[in-house]
């Protein structure tokens, strides 16, 4: 039975058509993926279903009955619940207080916390969620916060759940747990829509998938009848290559060396706690880890933007641990920062100005104190074409570009400085699949040119497909070094704080035990 049917949906923002003649159906008890790139119109469609946006044409049937979705409260009445990508939880309140927030009709003014906690616990037990009802939100990990969001929706009697990119912030283990719960919900009659752009999730965990591109539905297929390649093709409209493309290559001499590095975070607490490694010419070293385990501070320390408490950073053998950022750049460091909007670009500047930042006082862009506008424009013109930055207009403001093109500006700037060491932090975060492919291929190109590339990313697929060696960080320390062929489960354990040495020792222990038995 179809619990949701959307027919002929059109949605315009001004003259821009965000959803064009959409047909979408959701069957009871299925996990249905809505797959597409950024801007494909998936979120718009789901916001229409949840009553956040009105639609211009078409109609929506819930359980066979036509419904006018004028606001989220109408959607909630019809049993639709949405878990937003950015959590809507109040950190200072408990799990129970969050779940019942705004439900005054049920709770009354005075909260009988014991009773409410009991209700949370019952719901918990029904779906194996294992959330402590009395915990404060800021004290529990994101994986558990996600479950609180789902409980919140379930407590409001939703039967149709929309999950918007639910795995973006989870560890592999948490992803596994989340989908176990989702499957349990589907088996007990709930219907789930999963908005995502991760094909591996679609293939492993869902029943059907609807692919969207540029505001249109390209097709709906059963997951068992399709392949990742086919889905990627539907999504982008051409074949894409995200698989590993590293040619075997002998690494050269070490270009970036860290020894016993200690760095504090903004609160003055240790964030990087004694890290040593080196990156050689012609190799990509990946740093994996859950967000917030010191990777960001590590990156900032390497660039010179954060004070180093003790230890040393060397570029081509020369210590830079006390040098300015400018000195780092002069010594041959290039840097793709984690946040392109606040750290990578000046949004109010045109593309061409952004393309010379860091070299603005050097020939040919400046002669003494005077900057050379002609040279800057020429440089901009060239890079805009070389890197296919759209629009092909060096005068265009960086703030008006799409995320992918903004990232290309940064990449073009850093690559064109011909650095020796390239530090890339979350270089593809929030980009769509075509842009991801482009950024990754450029990093691989730098490697084959003999640059040393350090890649810090929370995206495990990215780390595994780009790295020659992988270091896993947890709590400011390196849990171990592995090759790109490492099992995801092992990576997950290390990301959760297990040391590789301990894992090896345990494995050896079981083998020995088995031999004796």
């Amino acid at each position: 039975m179809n619990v949701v049917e959307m027919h002929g949906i059109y949605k315009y923002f001004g003259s821009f058509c965000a959803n064009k003649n959409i047909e979408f159906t959701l069957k009871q008890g299925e996990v249905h993926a809505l797959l597409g790139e950024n801007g494909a119109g998936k979120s718009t469609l789901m916001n229409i279903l949840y009553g956040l946006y009105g639609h211009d044409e078409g109609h929506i049937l819930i359980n066979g009955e036509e419904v006018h979705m004028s606001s989220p409260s109408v959607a909630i009445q019809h049993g639709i619940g949405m878990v937003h990508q950015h959590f809507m939880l109040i950190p200072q309140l408990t799990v129970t207080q969050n779940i019942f927030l705004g439900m005054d009709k049920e709770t009354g003014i005075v909260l009988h916390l014991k009773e409410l906690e009991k209700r949370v616990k019952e719901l918990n037990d029904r779906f194996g969620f294992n959330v402590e009802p009395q915990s404060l939100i800021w004290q529990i990990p994101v994986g558990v916060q996600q479950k609180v969001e789902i409980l919140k929706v379930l407590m409001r009697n939703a039967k149709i759940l929309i999950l918007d990119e639910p795995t973006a912030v989870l560890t592999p283990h948490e992803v596994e747990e989340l989908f176990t719960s989702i499957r349990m919900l589907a088996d007990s009659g709930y219907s789930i829509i999963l908005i995502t752009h991760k094909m591996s999730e679609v293939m492993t965990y869902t029943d059907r998938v609807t692919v969207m591109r540029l505001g249109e539905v390209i097709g709906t297929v059963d997951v068992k009848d399709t392949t990742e390649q086919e889905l990627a093709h539907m999504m982008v409209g051409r074949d894409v290559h995200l698989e590993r493309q590293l040619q075997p290559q002998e690494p050269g001499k070490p270009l970036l060396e860290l020894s016993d590095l200690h760095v504090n975070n903004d609160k003055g607490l240790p964030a990087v706690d004694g890290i040593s490694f080196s990156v050689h010419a012609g190799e990509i070293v990946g740093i994996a880890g859950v967000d917030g385990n010191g990777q960001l501070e590590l990156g900032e320390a390497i660039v010179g933007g954060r004070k180093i408490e003790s230890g040393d950073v060397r570029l081509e053998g020369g210590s830079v641990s006390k040098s300015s950022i400018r000195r780092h750049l002069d010594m041959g460091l290039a840097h793709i920062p984690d946040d392109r909007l606040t750290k990578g670009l000046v949004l109010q500047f045109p593309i061409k100005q952004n393309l010379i930042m860091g070299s603005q006082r050097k020939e040919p862009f400046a002669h003494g104190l005077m900057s050379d506008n002609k040279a800057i424009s020429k440089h901009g013109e060239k890079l805009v074409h070389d890197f296919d930055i759209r629009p092909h207009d060096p005068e265009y403001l960086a703030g008006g570009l799409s995320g992918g093109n903004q990232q290309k500006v940064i990449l073009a700037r850093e690559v064109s400085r011909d650095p020796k060491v390239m530090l890339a932090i979350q270089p593809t975060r929030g980009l769509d699949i075509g842009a991801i492919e482009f950024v990754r291929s450029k990093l691989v190109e730098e490697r084959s040119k003999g640059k040393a590339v350090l890649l810090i990313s929370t995206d495990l697929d990215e780390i595994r497909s780009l790295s020659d060696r992988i270091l896993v960080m947890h709590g400011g320390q390196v849990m171990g070094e592995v090759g790109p062929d490492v099992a995801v489960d092992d990576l997950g354990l290390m990301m959760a704080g297990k040391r590789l040495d301990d894992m090896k020792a345990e494995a050896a222990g079981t083998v020995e035990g088995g031999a004796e038995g």
Partner: protein
Amino acid sequence: MDQLSSFLAATIRMAIPLLIAALGLLVSERSGLMNIGVEGTMLSGAFAAFSVAYYTNNYWLGMLAGMLAGCFMTLVFAVAAIKFRAPQVVIGCAINMLGSGFTAVLFRKMFFDAQTGGTQVKSFPSLQIPGLSSVPLLGETFFSHNIIVYIGILMVPAIWFLMNRTSIGTRIIAVGEHPKAADSLGINVFVTRYAAALFSGLLMGMAGAYLAIAQSNTFQVDMTGGKGYIAMAVVVLGKWRALGVLAGALIFGGANALQMTLQNAGLNIPNNLILMVPYIVTVLAVLAACKQKAIDASAKGVPYEKA
């Protein structure tokens, strides 16, 4: 013994206006409104309380007028901050100047008497709680105050209960912490913030009224003397919790009482230095408090705009 109990009693008397104003400010700040206009709001409350008490000869009506005046000042603040999304620090400053200016003008116009220097009103009498008030030390310290003191103390558990055990409290915290999340759950961010602002005005006005018609029996130009600012420090020191605010208010009340005791003791210290004691304590206490983690609202001072 006598000196000790009168010092403790003075501590409580001095702490009460800080306590009441700070409890109001706590609710306002947790809803996301950073109202630095406490001083001006208290002054308005004090003046309204004094004038109504003078004309009606009834201190209860005076108290009511003081609370309403406070409410009016925070309404001005709230409209500017919520509806017009003006910078809250600037509006707060304006409220302070407004409160100080118009109370001074009106007071001089309406009441100032060159011969006596001031006009006096009937103020809240102290209530000797039968039996308890004659217990040595404790009696004078705790059981022989005016009724507003007891109301102020009772407000500590009341505010705690409101913030932690009612859906109103969780709403206030939600709009101060993550207004968008609150909105997504059908909570009206604007209404909640207006309500919090008006409620805080009632308490700030009450604190001002206390100064005029409970702690003393007259109005003086700028009689709050920085107590509104100290109340802001008390909220920081109390880490946005009712019980913490009580402790903070007692520390400052103590500093004030100490200042008075030292003056009376006739020590050979310049008076000006002694008068500085409460303010130095403010600076030191806030510095100490800032070192520790607190639960200040994340969206404080940030106007909410619906998408």
